[in-house]
C-alpha cells in the first residue's frame, strides 16, 4: 500500500466514525450541538443496519410459500 490516499476505497462507516465524532468543534454561525451530531450518528447506524433486516423481512413470505 502506498501512503497516497487517492483512489482508496474508504468505507462510509469508517468515514462517518471520524467525521461525526472527530475534528475540531468550533462554533460556526450555524451550529449543530454535539447532541445533534450524536443523534445523527445513532440514526445513521439505525438506517444502515436496517437494510439487511429489511431484506430478511422480504425473504420471509417466500419461506412461508414453500411450507
Amino acid at each position, binding site marked *: 500500500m502506498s501512503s497516497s*490516499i487517492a483512489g482508496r476505497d474508504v468505507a462510509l462507516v469508517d468515514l462517518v466514525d471520524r467525521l461525526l465524532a472527530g475534528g475540531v468543534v468550533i462554533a460556526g454561525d*450555524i451550529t*449543530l450541538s454535539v447532541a445533534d451530531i450524536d443523534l445523527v450518528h445513532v440514526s445513521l447506524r439505525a438506517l444502515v443496519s436496517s437494510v439487511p433486516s429489511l431484506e430478511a423481512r422480504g425473504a420471509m413470505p417466500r419461506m412461508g410459500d414453500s411450507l
Partner: protein
Amino acid sequence: MAPGLIEPIEHDGLVTHVSRVPLAEFGEQPLRENLNDLDWLERVARAHETVLEAALEHGPIVPLRLCTIYEDEAGVRSMLASEDVRLRDALERLDGRLEWGVKLLVSRDALAAAARERSPEVAALEEELAARQGGGAYMVGRRLERCVAEVTERLASELADDVHAQLGDWARDSVLSSPQNRELSGHEGEMLLNGAYLVDADRTHELRALLAELEERHRGLGARLELTGPWPPYNFVTRGAGAHA
C-alpha cells in the same frame, strides 16, 4: 454538495479551505434533516474527506467537524483570529504525523477452540464429562459450556489489551473508538478493537511490521489486524485526546 470550488481564506498565516453552500440546504433546520439522509450525508462526507486528503498532501491540517458553517468570509476570519493559538498548537503537534486506523478482528470459533486447548479448567471439565452419563453429564456439559464462554471472553479481552498496549506504547498518541457494528461495516468475525494511532509519517513501514508481528503472535487465536489510512488526523486535533498526548 456538488464538488464546488474550494476557496482559501487566509488570516495571519492560517488558511482555511471553504466552499460556498446554499442556506436552503445547509441552514440549521435543513441541515438537521439532511444529516439524516444517508445519500446526502455520504455525498457531503466524501466531499469533505476529499478536500482534507488533498490538503493533507501539502502539510499539516486541522480537520474541522463536518458542516461547520459561516455566513460570510468575515465570520471565517474572526474564527481564525479567535482560535489562533489552539489551531497553531494543533498544527505544530500534527506536523509530519499521520493518523492510522487499526481494527482487531477475531473469529469467535477460533477463540473458543483456543480456550478449549489452553484452559486447564476446561480440560478438567471435558475429562469429567467423558466419564459421566445421564443427568450428571448434562450438568457437567452446562458447566463446561459456561467455562468455555468465560475463558473465551478472557482471551478476547487479553488479546485486545495486548494489541492496543503494544500499538499505543509505540505510537505518538492513540484513541479508542467503539468497535463497529458488523451490519454497518460488513466485517467478518468479531471486532474487538477499533483504534486510531498517530504515527510519524516516516515510520509507516515500522507500523506495518509491528502489525504483522502482532498478527503472527496471536495467529493461534485467529486474530486479524486491519489497517486503514492514512487519515486526516480527525482523532488527534485536541490536545490530550489520548493517553500519550
